[in-house]
């Protein structure tokens, strides 16, 4: 293997690698994330920074291997290529026939040969190699293996001398079976012996293998679906933007708001890179489980031989004992580690999803804010569904005594004409009251149905039934002329005033709506107030003017 005569650096460093210096030739000198030993271990390894190397004979990718160990002095880093890893694996398997060496990522399939240097492929492989070496390092027995030490400590130039690749058929066979974890080792000729202890372990490993593979494919599907959903959201954003652009004033708030929300939803889902770790690690773990199963089968073979055979019983018995013991300790070590790996992978996935939904939620909340902003005028004219929906549980109910709702509208209009609207608390209070009295007059019989319920399921069930029985038509219909005429008489008075109202008063109408809520018999949905664990209800009694979406904003997601 030629040493690197020239190195061309591909954009092989994905952002997923911790050290993201990416494309400088001086990769090797960059330290990257400092390597720290984990608790309980005296060694830590890391494989990263893939680099394409050109030599006279061939082009290949090398990976930087760093190791920090208490047992031997180690060079800051070395570069290894896949074949080296392969060799190491072979050597380890040969040296410890009773143990299953951690599996390597698979070789290229024929198709992938074309894609050998694609960043995604290389990144996945780097991750897998890292997992491999990490397992070796943390393995109680393998970590002390000489081969491993050589692998990690030898300088690049001298590696060939020590790490000669042997191509004997036997080794290849052992290699392939370890790598691909294919079928059974030949069954022993003797009767099958079922040892309950190891049978159950084998069964467990088999199901685990299946679960891991299924999990891997599900995760990939999930990721792909999420990406495509994100692009659809982009489409909606464009449509809404075009719509909002073609209208003016208040009318554009609706589609404008929708555009905002859709955009946020799209961005949340537009993660450019597929989550690496699951794709790399889950198949490996599955292979690893299979490798263990093979070892169990081997042991069973010995057992069968022992039971059936008659020659050299002692020797066979010893071997049997050794194998059993090795397996037991191996599994005892392996299972917790694997579980920890799985747990961290799943947590990663959950974390990512949580972030996606958090971002999406935030986006839609912003859009709701935008869309309902400065829509006070409609409140005056009709009590639209919007008003109903904007109800937060009326914290301000305590602030609003019934008598305040009695104030005259005319007073309100006079007041408006003379005041500046910049959100004095008192002024807004008065506004609230006027609006409340306004709306209260017009409320009878208008709000028949609950439109949307954002509370927990029990409520939503009931409300959905209401919804069905009364039909959407009622909600959308041009409400009876009676009501409208009332509204309009009110509206005409307050029309002038409405023009003056600006977004400063947005909070008002929500206050209104809140008190509306409580004056109504119907259970109006507390859309913006979900019973979240953070108990956000307690906040804000001191706030007079409360941001409509503060309930959301304070969701504590710890």
């Amino acid at each position, binding site marked *: 293997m030629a040493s690197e005569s020239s190195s061309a650096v591909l954009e092989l460093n994905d952002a997923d690698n911790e050290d993201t210096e990416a494309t400088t030739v001086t990769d090797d000198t960059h330290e990257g994330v400092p390597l720290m030993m984990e608790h309980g271990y005296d060694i830590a390894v890391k494989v990263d920074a893939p680099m394409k190397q050109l030599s006279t004979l061939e082009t290949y990718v090398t990976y930087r291997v760093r190791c920090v160990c208490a047992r031997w002095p180690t060079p800051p880093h070395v570069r290894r290529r896949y074949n080296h890893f392969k060799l190491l694996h072979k050597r380890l398997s040969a040296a410890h026939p009773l143990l299953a060496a951690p599996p390597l990522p698979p070789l290229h399939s024929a198709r992938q040969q074309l894609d050998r240097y694609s960043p995604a492929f290389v990144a996945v492989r780097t991750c897998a190699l890292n997992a491999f070496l990490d397992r070796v390092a943390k393995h109680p027995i393998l970590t002390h293996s000489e081969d491993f030490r050589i692998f990690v400590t030898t300088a690049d130039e001298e590696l060939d001398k020590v790490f000669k690749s042997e191509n004997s058929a036997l080794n290849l066979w052992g290699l392939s079976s370890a790598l691909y974890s294919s079928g059974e080792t030949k069954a022993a000729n003797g009767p099958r012996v079922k040892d309950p202890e190891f049978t159950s372990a084998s069964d467990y490993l088999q199901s685990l293998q299946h679960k891991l593979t299924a999990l891997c494919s599900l995760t990939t599907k999930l990721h792909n679906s999420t990406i495509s*959903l994100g692009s659809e959201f982009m489409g909606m954003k464009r449509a809404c933007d075009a719509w909002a652009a073609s209208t003016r004033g208040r009318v554009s708030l609706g589609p404008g708001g929708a555009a905002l929300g859709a955009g946020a939803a799209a961005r949340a889902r537009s993660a450019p890179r597929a989550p690496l770790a699951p794709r790399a690690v889950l198949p490996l773990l599955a292979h690893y489980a299979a490798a263990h199963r093979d070892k169990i089968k081997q042991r069973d073979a010995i057992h069968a031989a022992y039971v059936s055979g008659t020659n050299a019983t002692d020797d066979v018995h010893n071997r049997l004992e050794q194998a059993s013991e090795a397996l037991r300790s191996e599994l005892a070590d392996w299972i917790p580690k694997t579980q920890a790996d799985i747990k961290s992978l799943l*947590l990663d996935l959950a974390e990512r999803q949580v972030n996606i939904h958090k971002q999406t939620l935030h986006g839609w909340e912003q859009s709701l804010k935008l869309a309902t902003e400065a829509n006070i005028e409609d409140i005056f004219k009709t009590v639209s569904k919007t008003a109903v929906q904007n109800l937060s549980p009326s914290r301000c109910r305590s602030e609003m005594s019934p008598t305040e709702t009695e104030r005259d509208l005319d007073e309100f209009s006079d007041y408006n004409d003379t005041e500046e609207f910049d959100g004095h608390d008192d002024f807004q209070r008065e506004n609230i009251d006027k609006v409340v009295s306004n709306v209260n007059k017009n409320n009878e019989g208008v709000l028949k149905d609950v439109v949307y319920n954002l509370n927990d399921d029990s409520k939503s069930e009931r409300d959905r039934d209401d919804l069905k029985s009364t039909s959407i038509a009622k909600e959308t219909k041009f409400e009876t*002329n009676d009501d409208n005429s009332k509204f309009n008489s009110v509206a005409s008075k307050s029309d002038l005033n409405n023009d003056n109202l600006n977004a400063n008063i947005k909070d008002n109408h929500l206050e209104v709506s809140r008190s509306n809520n409580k004056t109504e018999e119907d259970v109006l949905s507390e859309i913006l107030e979900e019973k979240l664990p953070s108990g956000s209800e307690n906040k804000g009694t001191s706030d007079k003017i409360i941001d409509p979406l503060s309930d959301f904003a304070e969701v504590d997601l710890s």
Partner: protein
Amino acid sequence: MSEQHSPVKASRSPSVIETAEDFENQDTLLKHVDISIVESEKRANGTLHVRDHYTVYLIDLKVTDVDYKLVQSKISTIWRRYTEFEQIHDYLQVTYPHVIIPPLPEKRVLYAWRKSDTTDPEFVERRRAGLENFLLRVASHPRLCFDDQFINFLQQEHGWRETITDSGYILQAENKLKSLSVSIRLRKPDPEIESVKNYGKQLETNLGNFLYTRSKIIEKNYSLCKLHANYGKLFSEWSVIEKDMGDGLQKAGHYFDSIADSIDSVAEDEEQLADQLKEYLFYAGALQQLCTNHETLQRALENAQDTLNNRISERSRAAAGKSGLMSRLFGTTDPDIVRDQSTRALDAKILADKDNIEKAKTDLEDFTKKALVEIEHFQKQKDKDLHESLVSFITLQVKAAKKNLQAWIQIKECLQNMP
């Protein structure tokens, strides 16, 4: 505008409606009667072919105003099918060209994101709601609600189909279609109507795009959420074989299942919102129809004016004695008698033409006045309704995002609590 009591006579022209406010103060059917569509039923034409099955909807009328004489009985119910609704809708379109006729719910499934056809129970339910909405809109429109045929539609048990076809609306509709198929090019298009027409087109496009993208989103989102059910299954199966992780996995599995289930209600609610937007999509079409009607009248006026101009020039030629065949061929002048005769005849025709023009003008003015009021009212209503629908849509998204977030937080917690 004070409210007027309903007369006994069925049809009544509404009082002059000058402004949009007047509009809203008019008496309508809805102020006296409650209309609702309570249920639907499948009927068959005797054969058992699937194609011959159709759905009927039960219209329920309740008179709330004790003194109202217009509606015959206190409470009446009647079954109607979609094609009958179509008939009354077309009739109204032809009879009231200056009104924006409320649209019917879709005939075929538009913007479908999962396989469904018009026999789907969910679709039938949505259509029921849409038809009820249609009736309410018509009944609350002061110009439309007291129409004979419409009242008959609501009440006449037997023979309504004959009644309505007798009114000859089909012929009128066909005539209209013929005239509309010729694209109308006006010399001096009314700018206001033009802008309204363009607005209608724009609204149609915007709504169409929105509905399309929404359907794509719900499609993908639906399959994505159903994917979570696989996770749920995987996790529950997995929890069986694990000792320590079992609990956490199982709990997480439940939450995955809940995610998969939650999308169903979201999809349903969103579908209803989409229906509201579809209504306005069709409304935009009706708005454009109104503009086209206006253009037709304007074209008629222009034609009348053209005719007059032609006649005048003809008369002047006749007066000059140049109208006879001989004079045209050989340039000779007509004899006096001919000249006088033709001139007088043409004069009479000119008078008739002028009358026509006057009539056409008044027609147009009348139409324009009414139409503008109609449009103004429509715009207000539309702004309110669309805004509401969009806000509901956004709210629904907030709700769904919250649910998802909750579930995933719980999942994360379960996973964290695993040993």
